[in-house]
């Protein structure tokens, strides 16, 4: 890590002001919400910005609340705050549990959910789980407010569908109904996960009515496969029979490549291992 190049920090007091600053600085500016990834990339001289728009001081942007059967988590809520939130622990324990294992305690103490999602680093734990849970990002820009489904927010490695003047103000995550289950598992050797796997199931007695399996870290963004999700529905016995095919469909969709984290075939194999484990865990 090299010394940081000079930059200015701007601290807007409202979301509208932040949006206006982002529009004003354009390519030379970037939203700064925790810095655990952004500043690291800047210290490695991989990114250069003259202006950082610090949204951490915008009042109430870090709020965590339960509203109409959904968790509303503000964009500048830290991982640590989410992990320790009584509301989250009670209403969506799978999210709290995932957050306890994000990176390390130093990152969790500064890093924010909004920053994590908008930086769109391919190894994001939250992005994978939130995609499976059907979460929506609420964003605000010059043109006003809109909601984006998680799988439409992250469009590639380090890429989102946010306009230059838009910022993520919060994430809306439906809490699990009585007949819904979810699990998140990851396989990690290095600083970032090799694989993250999230599974959401909706039950009707012994039948699995609806399923959503999402694999992260093995490719540029969290991936799911309609075919895999279909194969994960039916009676439990049926699904157990089909789970190998579902894993293969998911692996085909993710299409992992060989890299320093492992060969493509190994990652495809891990998708199967962790889909099975997530299935058992979700139904436990």
């Amino acid at each position, binding site marked *: 890590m090299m010394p940081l190049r000079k930059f200015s920090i701007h601290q807007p007091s409202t979301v509208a002001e932040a949006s206006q600053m982002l529009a004003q600085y354009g390519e030379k500016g970037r939203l700064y919400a925790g810095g655990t990834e952004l500043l*690291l990339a800047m210290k490695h001289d991989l990114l250069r910005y003259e202006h950082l728009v610090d949204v951490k001081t915008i009042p109430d942007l870090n709020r965590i609340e339960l509203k109409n059967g959904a968790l509303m988590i503000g964009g500048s809520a830290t991982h640590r705050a989410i992990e320790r939130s009584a509301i989250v622990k009670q209403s969506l324990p799978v999210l709290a549990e995932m957050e306890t294992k994000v990176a390390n305690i130093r990152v969790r103490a500064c890093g924010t959910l909004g920053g994590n999602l908008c930086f769109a680093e391919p190894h994001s734990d939250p992005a994978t789980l939130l995609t499976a849970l059907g979460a929506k990002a609420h964003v605000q820009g010059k043109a006003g407010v809109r909601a984006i489904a998680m799988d439409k927010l992250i469009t590639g490695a380090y890429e989102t569908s946010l306009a230059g003047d838009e910022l993520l103000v919060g994430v809306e995550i439906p809490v699990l109904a009585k007949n819904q289950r979810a699990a998140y598992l990851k396989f990690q*050797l290095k*600083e970032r996960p090799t694989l993250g796997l999230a599974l959401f199931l909706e039950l009707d007695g012994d039948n699995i009515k609806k399923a959503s399996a999402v694999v992260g870290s093995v490719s540029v963004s969290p991936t799911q496969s309609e075919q895999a999700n279909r194969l994960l529905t039916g009676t439990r016995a049926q699904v157990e029979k089909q789970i190998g095919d579902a894993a293969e469909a998911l692996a085909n969709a993710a299409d992992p490549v060989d890299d*320093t984290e492992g060969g493509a075939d190994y990652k495809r194999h*891990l998708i199967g291992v962790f889909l099975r484990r997530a299935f058992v865990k979700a139904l436990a």
Partner: protein
Amino acid sequence: MSGETKTDFQIVNHSIPRRDGRVKVTGKAQYVADLRLIGMAYAKVLRSPLAHAKIISIDKSKAEAHPGVYCVVTGFDLDGLNPYFGHAVKDHPLLAIDKVRYAGEPVAAVVAIDERTAFEALEFIDVKYEELKGIFTPQEALAKDAPLLHEKKFEAGALRGFEGDVTAGQGTNICQTHKIQWGDVDKAFKEAAAVIEGDYYFPMTYAYAMEPYVAIADVTDQGVNVYSSAQHPFMVRHDLKNIFNLPVSKVRLIVPFVGGGYGSKSYTKVEPLVAACSWKAKRPVKLQLTVEEAMLTTRSDDAYTWMKTAVDKNGKIIARQAKIMMNTGAYAENSPLVVEKSTNRCVGPYAIANVLIENMSLYTNTVPASSYRGFGCAQVTLPGESQIDELATKIGRDPYEFRLQNAAKPGEEFFPGMRPFDGTLKQDLDTAAKAIGWGTPLAKGHGRTVAVSGSDAGAYPLTSTAVRVHADGSATIMTGSTELGQGSHTVLPQIAAEELGITYDKVNVISSDTAITPYDRSTGASRTTTLMGSAVQEACQEAIAQMVVMAADVLKVKKEEIQSVRGGVRCGEVELNWSQVISKFYALPDGEVIGRSYIRKSGKFAALPVFWEAAATGVELSVDEDTGKITMEKLATVGDVGLAINPALAEGQDIGAATMGMGIGLFEELVYEGSQLMNGSILDYRLPRFSDLPKQVELHLVQNRDGVGPYGAKGGGEASLNSMAANIANAVDKAVGVRIRQAPLTPERVWRALKEKNK
């Protein structure tokens, strides 16, 4: 603590809390990074993006015009200096001259008012290269059409520390060769009852220290002053003296606390470059590398080993043969000695009648390799201790019993011409085996193994010291040994306090300032307790001898009438402590006595090695067959240390070494793809964490006072690393029946081996 010896020691052999603990954990300890000289400038380095290329031109005018920049130094600006250094082989330019030999090699340095300005100016330097074909493995280096890395013949470094001829720079890419041979291996293999043979690979690893390389140089017409994070300041002094063509007396190296070394800070690293910057900028200059830059500065030699071992029908090991190729990277650094040591360390600690080991290190276009904790031993203990288990399995023997049968016995000259074995391997193995529950039932998917290593340690015996006893009865040790975190500055005053019969708190340590502290060759090879410890002990005894004479003078009696007692002297009814002797001698409550010691290769240190560093480790692990992931369940270390001057510190060294060895066994590996290092940051290079350690860890010491050092002590702190990768490979074989001959045993490698087995 096992092997308890009854002693009447008051201070040594006690676990006194480490002296530097409080200042370090409260952030008050000073490292080079904390120091600032008046008028000091800061340097940053431009590194080559190419692995092998001619430097056609460097345009630095734009960078030099950048506000705040004092100067830019390149390989074209070194007229007036002898720009090549190397204690073994003088092959290393302080900045690339005419060509670059690895991606990451320093090509230019900017000196500026602050670090950021220096960094920002780097991109304005325009270097034109002509790319050359690169070679990245020993096999490529030996190919007929391989390009030559080093075109010129080298001067051998005066302090090379090994016996053989320098083979570097003789028109090939061979850096160094070494061979040992006795008996007749071919004949023995023909007569053998069982033979095992295989190819093994030990990876490139990085000796991660929390403190990356850092130095401050101040070059004036008075001489060269350098503050550095160096392990061996006297070795660095020698290189700087040659570069600046100065007498030894005009070069001063000062080493404050060092934030970990593990071999990576042995010998010269950034000091010549920062000194050249100061020389050009005409002011003090600090250069502090980042971790990523440190990873482009040195690494361990990776090793390709073919090994073959044979037993007779009684289970006695009768022969071992090996051919090793080591990848030494772009410059020799200390690799010629690593080659010699890894050759020797293929044998121990077993008595084998027929041995042939041939070793060769090769220059490649990769980061230069050098010393690494264990010094070539881990590289060959992976094959060596793997083959012991493989052979035991083949002949149906318990591997622990099989080791006991063949291990070198105390006093046995198992390595012809070397010091007879001074450890007790049976006790080491027994202790390790018991600690991990040898012979008790084991869960499915679990494996349990023990392994040993014995290395010719202590480096070269050339050490001197002075102990100053002051008029108030306190004492100051002047030592060239560097406190790297290993605890030397706690252990040495323990010895002095014991000898002088004064309290431990009264002994201070002044260290590693080549202008002030007497010469010590190095702080490495586990030698400090044995060699510097002996020197401190002797210096105290010499001071006492002087004070006995002084007491006779003061009391107006003959020297023979003075009896030395703990903390002073007695003459009839009169007792004087050291303070009284000195004060009365000078007739003032001030003044001092200086005790000295010069240790060389003679007397009890005539035989090499200085000592055999022996240790056993035991592990139990489990394997997740679905993912291939290994979980450590139990770990035991047994350090065969003769006598622990400070048992808690000795055990701390062992768990540190074993953890480092575990890292190599499980996940540490620098990965090259073509010319580029792919994981040159600690985000991508996986280091061991506390959470990787098993819940059950037992640390044991065997203390038979069989070492050549003070009170029968000998060195430790490396040996527990050496056997860990083999131990993990052996335990995986026991757990799930796959033999992996390559470290690290990453989940993916274990999974692939299982897949192959289940085909």
